[in-house]
């Protein structure tokens, strides 16, 4: 019964999306207050209905109701409780329901907090959000209904793919989806602005918190997925340039570009047309990612089910949304007036530089991801585009961008002075050179690129600190008053510095863990010891063990440094009994920021086993850096000048006289 209520709520949502798609948009064009007024309540009603649906499906999983096809295919009564809950979105239908839930959640947020948006913009935005929702709810009802029943309910379910039975699954998809789908709001804002034919600096200020929010979650989601692949797949790698990873990385790159161009639009009223185009591109890439991952054109752990009808349906949605929005753009964008002149060497120029390289990098990743699919479709030839392609295209594009990062926030608006900016960065430059030389000295001349990479990372990190230091003018006014000024800095300045610092941290982790890692692959008998970067790793033996729904062989390893035991590692080979599915669980020990990583191969008859052991220096910085980036986004969102969503009269007054002396951004 509860399952049927969930199903019914979903159907009702579809009916509401039809109203939402037409009435408020028509009202916004005709400036009819009453028609526009329905948008907000309907957006909240849709959210409640989809939430009800989601709860109903979760209930079916908790109750192990195997008469529901989706539950039968993806659950098992012996599965631990947490995986019964996360299993709701560990499959095609359930993950789509989560997708739609987040979509309507964002709509409801705009409906709820958008009281200070101009009424036509709010109504049109929610209307456009309604189009997207209508498309996806229809997709679910027509091809991917999670509430389908099966007659003669089986006694036991098929269990969840064991690779997905991990706490990572509890977190990774929701974070990623909030990011992916969050860009739908920016898209809706952009399309609404095109429909209304009006766009200005205030628009950018309204859109930026939503972009920041989505970007923040997407950053965390990608980072989480990367760490999950690192420890769950047991391959020791954290990024494979797999098409599925690229699918989430492309919206991130485009979203990062949009975040920066929106600043120019907000502060200087320039780059409007470009920002709108980026908003459309970013969500289009999110949709493309959904298509790639969900249609089954790619085979991966993410391609839950392969059904040609679904692929075609998503492809049609994709063409409708991307084609439609771009046509609208071509038609209406000439109406948007350009403003704000600037010299090439200026803050605007630096942000354009950023956009240029990020867009070029997005194109490179897009080509590398789609080219094998296109070639296969046209000529039938099978190729694979792997890391070498991306290292050659993406890598060189990132180097000038990273070199320019510290300059961006220091250059003045309109017309900047490169020489003066360089002077402020002397200390950062000195530090970068110092670290490069030290790395050279420590590792010798056989690795030329790695010390330069370390130097680049230090340059970005030190440059972001230099920005804060120069802004509070510590050198001139001393530490006491400097500290007071530090607290007075706007949130967006802290946000910029923190996020840029995070980029440097991540780059440092990538360079050191790639260039200086030690990898040993060998067969070990019990009692054997192998040296990994000065750590003695001893294999003590293999012992069988048993979990709730799996059996495993656990390898016991002892790590010693100078004879002293510092860690015990227990990597294992598991067999999930319901699906007879083997997995490898890596044994990882973190030493401050570096990690020792051990994964096992097949045991041999004589008690020995194949072992792959790594020492990965500073690898955790890769993910710590992403935390800094996300934190930067939070700081930026907390900037009171940006807090347009908040229903506070104070914030509102603050905005209307926004022309008043805004602290230098």
């Amino acid at each position, binding site marked *: 019964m509860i399952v049927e209520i969930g199903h019914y709520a979903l159907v009702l949502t579809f009916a509401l999306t039809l109203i939402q798609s037409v009435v408020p948009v028509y009202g916004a064009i005709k400036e009819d207050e009453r028609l526009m007024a329905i948008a907000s309540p309907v957006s909240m009603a849709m959210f409640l209905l989809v939430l009800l649906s989601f709860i109903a499906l979760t209930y079916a999983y908790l109750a192990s109701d195997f008469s529901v096809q989706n539950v039968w295919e993806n659950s098992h009564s012996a599965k631990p409780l947490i995986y019964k809950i996360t299993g709701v979105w560990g499959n095609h239908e359930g993950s789509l329901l989560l997708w739609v839930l987040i979509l309507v959640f964002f709509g409801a947020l705009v409906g709820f907090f958008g009281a200070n948006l101009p009424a036509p913009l709010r109504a049109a935005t929610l209307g456009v959000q309604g189009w997207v929702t209508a498309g996806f709810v229809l997709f679910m009802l027509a091809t991917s209904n999670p509430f389908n029943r099966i007659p003669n309910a089986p006694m036991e379910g098929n269990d969840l793919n064991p690779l997905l039975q991990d706490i990572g699954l509890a977190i990774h998809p929701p974070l990623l989806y909030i990011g992916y789908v969050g860009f739908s709001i920016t898209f809706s804002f952009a399309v609404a602005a095109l429909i209304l034919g009006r766009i200005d600096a205030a628009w950018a200020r309204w859109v930026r918190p939503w972009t920041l929010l989505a970007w923040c979650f997407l950053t965390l989601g990608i980072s989480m997925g990367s760490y999950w692949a690192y420890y769950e797949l047991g391959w020791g790698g954290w990024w494979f340039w797999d098409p599925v990873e690229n699918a989430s990385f492309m919206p991130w790159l485009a979203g990062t570009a949009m975040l920066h161009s929106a600043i120019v639009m907000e502060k200087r009223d320039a780059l409007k047309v470009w920002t709108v185009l980026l908003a459309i591109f970013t969500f289009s890439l999110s949709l493309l990612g959904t298509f790639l991952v969900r249609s089954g054109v790619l085979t991966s752990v993410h391609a839950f089910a392969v059904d040609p009808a679904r692929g075609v349906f998503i492809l049609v949605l994709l063409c409708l949304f991307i084609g439609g929005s771009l046509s609208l753009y071509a038609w209406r964008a000439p109406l948007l007036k350009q403003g704000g002149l600037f010299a090439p060497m200026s803050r605007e120029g630096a942000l354009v530089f950023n956009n240029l390289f990020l867009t070029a990098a997005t194109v490179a990743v897009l080509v590398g991801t789609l080219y094998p699919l296109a070639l296969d479709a046209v000529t039938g030839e099978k190729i694979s585009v792997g890391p070498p392609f991306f290292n050659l295209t993406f890598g060189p594009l990132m180097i000038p961008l990273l070199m320019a990062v510290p300059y961006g926030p220091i250059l003045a608006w309109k017309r900047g002075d490169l020489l003066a900016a360089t002077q402020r960065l002397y200390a950062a430059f000195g530090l970068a050179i110092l670290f490069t030389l030290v790395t050279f000295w420590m590792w010798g001349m056989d690795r030329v690129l790695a010390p330069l990479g370390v130097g680049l990372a230090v340059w970005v990190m030190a440059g972001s600190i230099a920005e804060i230091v120069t802004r509070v003018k510590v050198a001139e006014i001393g530490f006491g008053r400097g500290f007071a000024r530090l607290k007075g800095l706007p949130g967006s300045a802290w946000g910029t510095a923190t996020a840029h610092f995070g980029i440097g941290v991540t780059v440092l982790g990538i360079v050191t863990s790639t260039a200086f890692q030690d990898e040993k692959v060998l067969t070990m008998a019990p009692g054997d010891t192998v040296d990994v970067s000065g750590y003695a790793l001893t294999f003590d033996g293999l012992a069988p063990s048993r979990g709730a729904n799996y059996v495993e062989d656990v390898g016991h390893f002892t790590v010693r440094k100078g004879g002293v035991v510092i860690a015990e590692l227990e990597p294992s080979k598991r067999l999930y009994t319901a699906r007879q*599915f083997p997995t490898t669980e890596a044994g990882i020990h973190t030493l401050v920021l570096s990690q020792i990583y051990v994964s096992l191969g097949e045991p041999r008859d004589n008690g020995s086993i194949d072992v792959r052991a790594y020492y990965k220096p500073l690898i955790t910085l890769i993910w710590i850096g992403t935390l800094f980036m996300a934190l930067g986004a939070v700081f930026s969102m907390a900037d009171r000048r940006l807090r347009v969503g908040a229903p506070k009269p104070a914030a509102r007054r603050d905005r209307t006289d926004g022309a008043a002396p805004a602290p230098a951004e």
Partner: protein
Amino acid sequence: MTRKQRRLTIIGGAGAVLAAALALIMVALNDQIVFFQSPTDIAQEAVPHGQRIRLGGLVEAGTIERHENATVYFRVTDTENTVTVTYTGILPDLFREGQGVVTEGVIRPDGVFEADTVLAKHDENYIPVEVAEALKDKGHWQGEAQ
């Protein structure tokens, strides 16, 4: 600078960056992509030694030999031709006799394929698409189409 000069500087700079990016992509597409080959392709076309390729097929039953130091030898077959493959490292969890496999690496002068990557299926329903199609070409495909 006049307005026109400014605009030209920016457009010129943008053009240069985009041209450089396109050049990189073209070069990389020429040099860095890896073609998929079946054992029959290798037998017929004589792939040059040292060129990276992807070799896919089924792991021939009874051919997996484990040597010291995590090195393994096995034969990959498309039921007409076979190629001996050697790999040092941890094989994927789902690597088994008679199952589909995709390996990436180079052919050594002695004709043995030295793989640095071995991919097996992700779950029990999955056989690499390339392998499935190569087998279909040979008329040996049983089972449902992906």
